[in-house]
């Protein structure tokens, strides 16, 4: 648990109601003054400065953006823009392309969660079991390499491998000559989602192992020795010692991932998708991007803010739900 909260619970229930609780409150604050001053204040004040001050911009979701010129303050654009109420949201809900993007976002994120999330865990468990020390280090380093490539580059590599003049096609044609003219890998709506998930795993699984391996490294070695003396086999040791040591981290990351379902990776999808796969691959962020930059219409910051707001509200709701579920199951949540 995050510390002993029994002291705090009465404060939570009756914050400023009675003089007694208030005295306790002030006593505690004074006792921990250094923490407030040097630990909480720096990060908190900077976050308020850079993240909360701009937050009223969310009101742009209900406006059509019109810039204000001349002597303008931080929020004057809110007043120079025209109020349109829920018009943006209405427009969203009417556009079938929006719902298509919405559905795709959820499906792709769930696929990534179901298939992609366990990969770094399994991989790190496997790496941890390697007994050859030098090779283990090499593996740990090399596995992280794809993370450093940008999606632009990965898309290019994918083109070389899977494209019309790529290696995979040449090999497939050997087995199935009829594929020579009908090869369709990169713009095939049936496999695109799986393709996204697979590439995402390839690129990020190694990087994810860093964190898990770091957590595993914190396990007390004597536990393993004790287990061996009790006669535990390899797999049992992994299941009962290694895995639980990272359980806390897994839960947190899982909760955070659920809170990120509405954010299918823009970079990845943007660089890999093309018109024939829009029906399955277009996600909310790419939909907004196309609206803003590629059509002959006026780019309205209000509309893109509205869509962003919708996304974040849903994400936040999912986060709260996942957090509550985790707590009910007895794990530490994040809130």
């Amino acid at each position, binding site marked *: 648990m*995050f*510390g*002993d*909260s029994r*002291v*705090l619970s009465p*404060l*939570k229930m009756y914050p400023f109601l009675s003089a007694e609780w208030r005295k306790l409150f002030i006593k*505690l604050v004074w006792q*921990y003054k*250094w*923490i*407030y001053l*040097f*630990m*909480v204040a720096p990060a*908190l004040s*900077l*976050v308020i400065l*850079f993240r909360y*001050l*701009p*937050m*009223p*911009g*969310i009101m742009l979701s209900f406006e059509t*953006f019109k810039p204000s010129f001349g002597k303008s303050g931080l929020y004057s*654009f809110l007043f120079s823009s025209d109020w349109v109420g829920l018009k943006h949201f209405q427009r969203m809900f009417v556009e079938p392309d929006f719902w298509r993007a919405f559905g795709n976002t959820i499906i792709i994120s769930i696929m990534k969660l179901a298939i992609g999330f366990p990969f770094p865990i399994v991989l790190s468990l*496997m*790496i941890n*079991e390697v*007994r050859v020390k030098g090779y283990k*280090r090499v593996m*740990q380093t090399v*596995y992280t*390499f*794809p993370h*450093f490539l940008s999606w632009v580059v*990965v898309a290019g590599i994918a083109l*070389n*491998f899977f494209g019309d003049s790529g*290696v995979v096609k040449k090999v497939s044609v050997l087995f199935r000559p009829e594929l020579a003219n009908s090869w369709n890998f990169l713009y095939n709506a049936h496999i695109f989602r799986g393709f996204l998930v697979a590439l995402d795993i*390839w690129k990020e699984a190694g990087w994810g192992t*860093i*964190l898990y391996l*770091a*957590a595993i*490294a*914190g396990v*007390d070695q*004597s536990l393993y020795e004790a287990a061996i003396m009790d006669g535990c086999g*390899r797999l049992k040791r992994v299941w009962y010692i290694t895995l639980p040591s990272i359980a806390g981290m897994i839960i*947190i*990351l899982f909760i*955070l991932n659920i809170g990120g379902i509405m954010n299918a990776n823009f970079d990845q999808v943007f660089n890999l998708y093309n018109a024939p796969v829009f029906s399955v691959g277009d996600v909310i962020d790419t939909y907004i991007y196309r609206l803003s930059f590629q059509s002959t219409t006026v780019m309205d*910051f209000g509309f893109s803010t509205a869509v962003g707001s919708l996304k974040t509200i849903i994400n936040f709701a999912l*986060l709260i739900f996942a957090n509550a579920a985790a707590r009910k199951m007895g794990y*530490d949540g*994040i*809130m």
Partner: protein
Amino acid sequence: MTATKKGLYRKEPLDYILLVLLSLILILILYPFYNAVLISIVPQNDYVRAPLMLWPSRVESTNYKFVFDSPVLLRSMATSAVMMVVGAIYNMLLTVLFAYAMTRPIPGRNFFRFIMVFTMYFGGGLIPYYLLIKALGLLDNFWSMVLPTVISVTYMLIISNSMNSVPSELTESAAMDGAGEIRILFQIMLPLLLPILATFTLYYAVERWNEWYSAMLFIKSVDKWPLQYALRKIISDANFISTQAVTGEYRPPTYGEGIKMACIVVTVFPLMAVYPFLQRYFLTGLTAGAVKG
């Protein structure tokens, strides 16, 4: 002890299967990277004919020359290096302090944590952010690329959670010995959590090294460009076909793929060079006997 060691390190068939499997994955991961390096050093014609070659028949350095000919490259590398070091320290310091504060039973703790988590989801959008940076006078300023990053709440939460799994006997005994909060944090907590901290320092460092979007928005002078932004410019130069050829100006022979790959190598090489040295910090951990009693 020897008997136990043998028990721990005896090789089973599982080990061999594991090694084979992991080696296959290694090749799968390594090959495209190797391919990227090759593309950056072979002539364009060779690349297009055999993009997946295993060994180059001819090698040339035109792409790297093009990249390094750019007047901004070295400068932007230095800028990014400074951003990375300063930024990582800045981020890490704030994160660790706040994470520790979240483990102590201070009033309002849940409230503070909520404030942080809230920012993960709700923000004002691009325009108010831009106006804020402008109001703070940080436009065209190096710090506009570092200061607004503050902390990553995800990392803070994980660090905080890890701090909680440090056995409380350690902290309580230190407190009873009269140690203040700062001492407990730095002399007891941090050494035990070294792998986690090293991990997130690395994460932050890589994030700062790869930063380009804030440069695109806020930076107006060429000498403040970070590396990634300069590379994007170089790549788009390579792809851009001049529609108005000024007298005497011509673009040297280049090809887009090669330039892209050379840029990748230039970005990643410094990180790769440093990463193995940091490896050992990721692997230290609690040794038997530290927590006895």
